[in-house]
């Protein structure tokens, strides 16, 4: 998403929130709760995890408001906090990729390569968490591979290969037309 709050308004709200104006803080929360929750839903496994990420993100925003200097997009700053919180949760829980998926997708077991013809929402949800994270951050949020690599603690080439593999999987599941 692009930042819905004009920079001047964002600066004013942040200044008021920093000075202890809780109404301004609530306005910030209401402006960004949906995009933060949506990002969290795409980067975590369950709605409950996403809710926790939403809460952790805004607790961090409250603590760190002074670090936003008003020079860049406020959404960009909050989004990075949210992505970090989601990825921290991922690392903390040491989630494992769904290994059987690999065989299922490649058709290695059956020798078949039949498209599942899922819709895009279902296909995205079916991707392993790490691949889904790379796809979402790169294709939707506009992060570069360098930024993703730094955020996820991986190499740039690994981020590129994850994106390529994820799109190959999506192609199989969606069918060649991608008319989801």
């Amino acid at each position, binding site marked *: *998403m692009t930042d819905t709050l004009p920079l001047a308004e964002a*600066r*004013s*709200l942040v*200044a*008021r*929130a*920093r*000075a*202890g*104006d*809780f*109404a*301004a*803080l*609530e306005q910030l*929360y*209401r402006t960004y*709760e*949906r*995009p933060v*929750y*949506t990002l969290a*839903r795409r980067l975590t496994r369950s*709605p409950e995890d*996403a*809710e926790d990420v*939403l*809460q952790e993100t*805004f*607790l961090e925003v*409250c*603590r760190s408001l*002074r670090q936003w200097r008003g020079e860049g997009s406020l959404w960009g700053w909050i989004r990075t906090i949210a992505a970090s919180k989601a990825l921290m949760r991922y690392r903390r829980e040491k989630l494992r990729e769904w290994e059987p998926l690999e065989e299922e997708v490649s058709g290695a077991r059956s020798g078949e390569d039949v498209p599942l013809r899922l819709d*895009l*929402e279902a296909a*995205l949800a079916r991707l392993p968490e790490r691949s889904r994270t790379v*796809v*979402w951050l790169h*294709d*939707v949020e506009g992060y570069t591979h360098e930024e993703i690599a730094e955020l996820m603690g991986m190499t740039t080439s690994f981020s*590129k*290969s994850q*994106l*390529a*593999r994820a*799109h*190959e999987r*999506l*192609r199989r599941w*969606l069918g*060649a*037309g*991608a008319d*989801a």
Partner: protein
Amino acid sequence: MSDGRHGTSEELLALRDGEGGAWVREHVAACAACAAELERLEQVRSQLRALPSFAPPRDRWPVVLEAARRDRRRRREAWSAGVLAAAAVVVLSFAVFRHAAAPPQDAALRQAMAESQAMEQVFRSLHPDQRALTGRTAGVVADLEDRLAQVDAALNDPSAVRADPDRVAELWRQRAGLLSALVDVHETRATYAGL
């Protein structure tokens, strides 16, 4: 078709993102299959971006608000403790260097400290943490509080205190001035709001 092969997913994605090399660029221009795949990748990206957003099922704002209130109370307490520590550092430093310090310096410092402490009492009596502020006022208050924090940090540095007693008196005067400005801002705002 060049090199007898098609572009890989990674090469086509790089091209989609405006980073593709010369080979894949030329190849796609001549290969209908790769051109179609590139188009499909662009479509998938557009469709991903068009997916609906999610609304949080429960309102987490009350939890965030309570945490923000707790955090603000803690910061206020830490701020007060910092000021007391700064005053203690200065008093101790001047107890040690009392004989070396010239009487006018001592008097100037005591006066600056007294002014700062008096202004702080006035400021606190306004209950600044319970006031809602407009955008411009909030910006001014935040700036004054930042500068106040810098002065407090300087006063909390014992080596600086020992090195330049004149500077310490100047810092206390700055502190009194900043508190006075904060009082002005809050009182003005209260007058406008009819508080």
